[in-house]
């Protein structure tokens, strides 16, 4: 094995890890605040990716300029589902949300399939000239993904640390009852949590489609590594989710040195199970 190959895989790992991180932040925030694993999160990514496709084909926008449409689409869907269904189920029996979101994942995927069919699609056909840095090859899409993720992670950080809404989210994640007693309007913060989680998921979906292709099941197949990332980092901890995403992404790529690439999800799963055995609260000490 050559160093260059290794570095190339590392770069690919960081790229796919970025996509995982963006998805995992949302899963982690929602788990922290609403106390359930949101199984339809991957499908929100799919929704975002396809909304961007609609803007690309319908309005002729370049894909990066279509990202706001992706965010808008996923946010409307997520908040809509929360307000019509999850909100009512929250009040009666929270565990039922797991089942409901599992059903939602299936329903969202079906809607995408009805509108766009099941064939693979891309935003942009044709070959783009890659950049070369030494022996490492980088597609233009990869540069967008890395830069976009860095930007969003910084924005999430500033939001959580500096804005009062962001602090309220962290407070709710710490202790929902105390947040209510403190005067925080929990329902409002929950809606904003969905806005943020779905918005990040939409961008992750667009990035994933830029890196690979669009397909109705693209997001669902990301659920396992995304949950693995969230658990690895410590569920309920957005920073842990970023760390977990990068670790899982890099581990998945490096594993292809020894394993068939088909087993990437198994690598994520193995890391998750290992973590559940030795440190279920995750690297940054989230909930268990």
């Amino acid at each position, binding site marked *: 094995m050559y160093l260059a190959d290794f570095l190339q895989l590392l770069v690919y790992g960081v790229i796919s890890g970025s996509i995982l991180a963006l998805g995992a932040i949302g899963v982690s925030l929602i788990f922290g605040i609403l106390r359930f694993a949101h199984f339809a999160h991957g499908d929100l990514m799919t929704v975002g990716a396809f909304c961007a496709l609609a803007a690309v084909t319908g309005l002729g926008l370049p894909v990066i300029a279509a990202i706001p449409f992706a965010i808008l689409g996923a946010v409307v869907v997520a908040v809509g589902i929360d307000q019509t269904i999850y909100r009512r189920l929250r009040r009666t029996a929270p565990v039922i949300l797991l089942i409901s979101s599992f059903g939602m994942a299936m329903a969202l995927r079906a809607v995408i399939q009805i509108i766009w069919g099941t064939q693979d699609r891309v935003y942009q056909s044709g070959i783009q000239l890659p950049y070369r840095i030494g022996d490492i090859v980088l597609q233009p899409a990869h540069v967008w993904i890395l830069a976009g993720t860095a930007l969003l992670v910084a924005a999430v950080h500033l939001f959580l640390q500096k804005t009062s809404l962001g602090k309220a989210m962290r407070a709710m994640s710490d202790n929902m009852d105390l947040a209510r007693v403190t005067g*925080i309007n929990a329902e409002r913060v929950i809606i904003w949590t969905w806005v943020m989680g779905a918005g990040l998921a939409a961008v992750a979906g667009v990035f994933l489609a830029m890196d690979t292709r669009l397909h109705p099941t693209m997001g669902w197949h990301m659920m396992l590594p995304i949950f693995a990332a969230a658990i690895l980092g410590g569920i309920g901890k957005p920073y842990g989710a970023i760390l977990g995403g990068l670790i899982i992404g890099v581990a998945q790529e490096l594993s292809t040195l020894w394993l068939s690439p088909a087993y990437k999800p198994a690598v994520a799963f193995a890391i998750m199970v290992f973590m559940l055995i030795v440190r279920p609260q995750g690297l940054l000490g989230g909930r268990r």
Partner: protein
Amino acid sequence: MTIPAGSLLALDNVYGGYGGVDILRGVTMTVQPGEIVVIIGPNGAGKSTSMKAAFGLVNVREGRVAFEGRDITNWRADRLVKLGMGFVPQEHNVFPSLTVQENLEMGAYLNPKGMRARMDKIFGIFPRLAERRRQAAGLMSGGERQMVAMGRALMAEPRMLLLDEPTAGLSPLFIEQTFERVVEINKLGIGILMVEQNAKQALAIAHRGYVLAMGENRFEDTGPNLLANREVAELFLGG
């Protein structure tokens, strides 16, 4: 209609509990403006539950809760904060991953105007918090956490403060200090309803007190009278 006129907070014959079971079976109490009122009673008597019922955290099945004459029975907690009530729960009363300063900011979430000035006022009452403002609240000692929790509640500028066992688990020195702070806060014109296990000290600073047992009122009197009451002393003050 037994809610006395002019009262700050009043619970009138409240029944309620968790799930289907009534823990409270006719609890009645009032706090007049400017008063410190202390609730004592054995473990499991329903003291915390009474406070939660007043704060909309436990369903009140029967009876009424009123704040400044307004019926607030089963109101949502965040609306009560807006109205001018503050609550420091018995446990888990700080946001552990937020810094001290952020905990205080959360207290002003509903009304952030002039937050800095208020925070300075609270740092005046609890100078220790000013020193540790950037520290995560979860990493602080029990006594310091209690200060954070009280400070957080005060940030909303309440006219009425509910404190559930503010001295639980503290060292004697901290207990003493906490009661001094409570008196100080009360002097700002804030009515106080406080559950206490350190009953003698608490009654000593209280204007009035209630003894609760089995979810019902057992005694009520001024602080000194309750301290002097032989039956109360034998049953609830450890002789």
